């Protein structure tokens, strides 16, 4: 701590303090689809398709998508790192796009399709990106890995779709390069710094590994 009461972490992280608590997400209340604004939080019904399966939940509207996946659907592959969108450990794919599941409410995803690390592949039938992470040793402690893999899968699709990035030289010609992959993966922090091997795994799956 500095004399001002700030940790170095606060300053480095663009100052979003990582001190949140998420109290009592499971208070019992009568299930209801509509809520009245005068009363406090009420449970709400939610239908989603998660990893190909229809799920039905009763949730306090405060429940983030991350907590719904982990605490209610017991899909604990998706990790809670900072809970403030700063680390990327909670990355999942919703309606085909990678997002931080910690910064979105589950009830905002009524009727939507969610893919987590468990839905990409299974130990018996690995997704090519999962296999590449193993082959290239793209992790050490493994905590950030589910988020890294979900992100990496989506990054290759974003490049394919021509979405530009900060390092794209010509906005009209978007293609693979190591620099593109590094920039696009910057929303996924790895405390063990497995970055070079993550890029190697992505390069492999992108079919750019011939060199």
């Amino acid at each position: 701590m500095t004399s001002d009461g700030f940790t170095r972490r606060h300053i480095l992280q663009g100052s979003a303090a990582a001190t949140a608590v998420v109290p009592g997400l499971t208070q019992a209340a009568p299930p209801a689809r509509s809520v009245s604004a005068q009363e406090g939080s009420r449970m709400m019904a939610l239908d989603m398709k998660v990893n190909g399966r229809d799920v039905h939940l009763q949730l306090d509207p405060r429940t983030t998508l991350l907590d719904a996946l982990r605490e209610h659907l017991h899909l604990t592959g998706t990790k809670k790192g900072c809970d403030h969108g700063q680390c990327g450990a909670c990355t999942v794919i919703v309606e085909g796009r990678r997002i931080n599941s910690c910064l979105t409410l589950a009830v905002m995803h009524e009727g939507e399709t969610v893919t987590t690390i468990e839905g990409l592949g299974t130990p018996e039938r690995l997704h090519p990106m999962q296999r590449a992470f193993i082959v290239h040793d793209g992790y050490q402690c493994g905590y950030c890995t589910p988020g890294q893999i979900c992100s990496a899968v989506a990054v290759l699709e974003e490049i394919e779709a021509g979405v530009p990035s900060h390092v794209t030289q010509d906005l009209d010609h978007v293609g693979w390069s190591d620099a593109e992959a590094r920039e696009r993966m910057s929303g996924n922090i790895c405390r063990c710094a497995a970055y070079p091997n993550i890029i190697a795994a992505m390069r492999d799956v992108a079919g750019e590994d011939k060199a």
Partner: protein
Amino acid sequence: MKAFTYERARSVEAAVKAAASVQSARFIAGGTNLLDLMKLQIETPAHLIDVNHLGLDKIEPTQEGGLRIGALVRNTDLAADQRVRRDYAVLSRALVAGASGQLRNKATTGGNLLQRTRCPYFYDTRMPCNKRRPGSGCGAMQGMSRSLAIVGVSDACIAQNPSDMAVALRLLDAQVETMAQGGAKRTIPLADFHRLPGDTPQVDNALQPGEMILSVTLPKPIGGIHVYRKVRDRASYAFALVSVAAVFGQNGQARFAFGGVAPKPWRTDGADAAASQGAKAVAEAALAGARTTPHNDFKKALLRQTLASLYRQQEAQA
């Protein structure tokens, strides 16, 4: 998070009406700023109105030859739009310089404009902050002010506006279209949208309570060479210390807008007028009346050097 109720609005009119009828209601778009602040109980709305399903996610040409960008267009989609890439490249560049791929997939045009400051004392509820708790004092002024603003500040607050997108929109003379309580529409030039703190730093912008952003319009393309240069503590996924949006035209003409240095996207007539005299003159004109702290005084030199680098790059390409 404090308890709240949630509804998915069915129409723009219904959303605006709901905002008027419930005290401390908030619209929620991407949620990437609002939920962050709600977890820290800096924002404590009693009711959330989800505006994601109102058809405000389109980019359309205007009669004047510009573009109308729906308030719910995601930052990723705006940056990738062919017309934006071709005619307003500075906007694409600014967008992809902000946040991360995951966040840009959620962040919306309206929400990005309304994101709150990243002043560390605003975020720390144990600290005094006039923006978070009016009258409590400013923790930053005598504290860690390295990231904060150096122009347009007041005795009450020196917070910076953190948006990259807004800097490009300011450069392009964008306008914000809204619907206020009662359903009346109005148009606010981006120049007048964000406020300087004065002695009411808790008010960030010109919106009335319950007023909803419907879209942002861009005038017809101005041509020129578009650049956005952002300087930050790491190469990606960090807020700007300083940023420069510029469009270089013919005969040494250029226009500039600046991020990271002011409580709003910063643009001055003087800086544009000084374009032909080079980086030093532009920086001086942009930062006229600057009021720095020992922690953030370096931003003056950083802005000058950033401009100098942009000029060198222009000359090399000419």
